[in-house]
């Protein structure tokens, strides 16, 4: 009897030890990114627990980002529509992929993605960067790639086999998305003149400083405060949408009621979200023309004219836009900021301080297939 109990106990111990041993994979561990840092004013950020930033994952992600094998016809990579010297945009009104058919949306700059709305695409339809990468990969008009085929192709490349093995222990669609997301998370733009100003290293010119003040103020005639209310949507340091819930989405008066696109409503099914699009970061805005989700404006002057006097009213238009008027008492029905030409020029001068030459030339973000 006692022997029996001992035998059962021994069996249980051995059984669990075997399970534990079986789960333990013996592979070379990936190297955590030791020197990863970001400006204090950008605030907190979160990297998913199941996809920690490692040297190997980032290196792998960078290769994948620039590899046209990710597309059906072997000609389109992520970098086709996200070109480094254009702050990872493509200069087109809307992007064009394998099918040659213009897509619905303008290519969005890929910078500082750890902050701001953690809902990706202009209408916020991807809740993580990992899920985001799957969409262009498989979309018939973008890269049109079959995931099974992609994995087989990558497995045929010794360099990829080694990188995948160290970073994720396997070559799989999930590992591809996690690697791409890891590389994208390292695309941090934080050495523009505005950043240098925030760090107290330089002074802005008088005109840039006027532009900065206008950018950072919602107008209030009562206290003689002139402003362009940019900051109402574009946060003060990141210059993009806020991160909490759907705060980083807005209807910025591009279309009237009849022509309002679904926007965020397509994702949330909330009628109050009709016509709301993601507020993009304005970092490197000088390089990311054309502007808006559909690339309708070619220049920053056109953008400023839109916000100053081109706003179209609709039921979901932000009351902050309707109310903002530097002449006060939102002159009967006409929505306008009533900025002076000099003020508009000053705001554009400030927007130019958001250009980060280091970001658009850094070798660690560049095409690894090109020998320098």
């Amino acid at each position, binding site marked *: 009897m006692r022997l029996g109990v001992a035998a059962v106990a021994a069996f249980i111990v051995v059984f669990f030890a075997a399970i534990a041993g079986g789960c333990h994979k013996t592979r070379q561990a990936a190297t955590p990114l030791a020197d990863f840092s970001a400006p204090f004013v950008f605030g907190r950020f979160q990297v998913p627990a199941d996809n920690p930033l490692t040297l190997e994952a980032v290196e792998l992600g960078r290769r994948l980002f620039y590899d046209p094998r990710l597309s059906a016809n072997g000609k389109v990579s992520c970098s086709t529509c996200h070109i480094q010297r254009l702050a990872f945009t493509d200069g087109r009104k809307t992007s064009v992929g394998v099918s040659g058919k213009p897509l619905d949306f303008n290519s969005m700059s890929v910078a500082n993605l750890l902050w701001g709305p953690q809902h990706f695409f202009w209408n916020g339809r991807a809740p993580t960067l990992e899920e985001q990468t799957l969409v262009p990969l498989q979309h018939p008009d973008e890269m049109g790639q079959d995931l099974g085929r992609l994995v087989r192709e990558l497995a045929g490349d010794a360099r990829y086999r080694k990188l995948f093995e160290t970073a994720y222990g396997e070559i799989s669609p999930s590992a591809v998305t996690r690697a791409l997301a890891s590389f994208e998370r390292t695309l941090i733009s934080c050495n523009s003149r505005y950043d240098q100003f925030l760090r107290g290293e330089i002074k802005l010119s008088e005109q840039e400083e006027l532009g900065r003040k206008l950018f950072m103020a919602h107008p209030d005639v009562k206290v003689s405060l002139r402003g362009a209310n940019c900051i109402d949507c574009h946060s003060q340091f990141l210059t993009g949408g806020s991160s909490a819930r759907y705060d980083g989405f807005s209807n910025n008066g591009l279309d009237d009621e009849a022509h309002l696109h679904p926007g965020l409503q397509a994702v949330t099914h909330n009628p*109050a979200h009709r016509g709301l699009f993601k507020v993009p970061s304005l970092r490197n805005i000088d390089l990311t023309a054309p502007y808006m989700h559909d690339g309708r404006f070619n220049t920053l002057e056109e953008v400023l004219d839109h916000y100053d006097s081109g706003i179209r009213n609709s039921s979901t238009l932000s*009351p902050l836009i309707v109310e903002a008027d530097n002449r006060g008492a939102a002159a009967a029905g006409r929505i306008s900021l009533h900025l002076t030409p000099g003020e508009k020029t000053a705001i554009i001068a400030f927007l130019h301080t958001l250009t980060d030459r280091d970001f658009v030339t850094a070798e660690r973000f560049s095409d690894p297939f090109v020998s320098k």
Partner: protein
Amino acid sequence: MNRALKATLMPALIAVVAALGVTGWWIYRGEQPGELTLYFHPFVGPKPLVLNQSSYANPGGVGRFKVRDFQFFLSNIRLVSPTGAFVEPDSYHLVRFDGEEPGFVIVLHQVPRRKYQRIEFGIGVDPTANRSLQQRGDLDPNSRMAWNWEVGYKFVLFEGTLHRGETNDPLVYHVGFAENYRPMSIELHRDVQHIRPARLDFRVDLLRLFQGATNIDMAALPSVKFDRGDAALLGGNFAGMISLMRSDAAGRSGRTR
């Protein structure tokens, strides 16, 4: 000891030991710090607040208004008892009503089991935190509640539309500034320790921003931003905005979980 006696005593002994163990565990568990849920139910006067849909009468004049966004900072939560206070660390909560729940929930963790007399918190952000770029709790200088680093945070944000006949006027109330930080103290008159589940229900009444020390007509004052005098009008009414609900009333209006 004969076998029969042994057979009777052993189960009895085991039962006694088990009973002692369970009782001890029960007492131990009762003494352990626990969670306290604060549930905030939004109202516009007597009616529940429904964003974007319901319209409400302008409390100080003509017209009806809709609420697009209503949120505020609630800071520095403390529970006070004669034997000591519970102070929530990094206590900065952005209370908002656009989530899945009809109300807003704050869960206080590791609250010692004591008889608390009152709960204290502030409406807004205390001057020290308001001057800082440190991210504590829900404070975030890149959020829509931040004005800019020279001004600090909006304490209470209410945006909507006032409908008067054919005219639709935007309503923008962004109320901040150090002088409008409002410390509150609410008597509990009961023993938090014995509430199961441990929960306190609060009524948040948007209308009270416009009624109280000063009555405000939204048509006459459709926006409050940087004018300190205007901000003080709403700031002076902050204290009436939050009150403790009787648990039976809370049970009717809020979803029990």
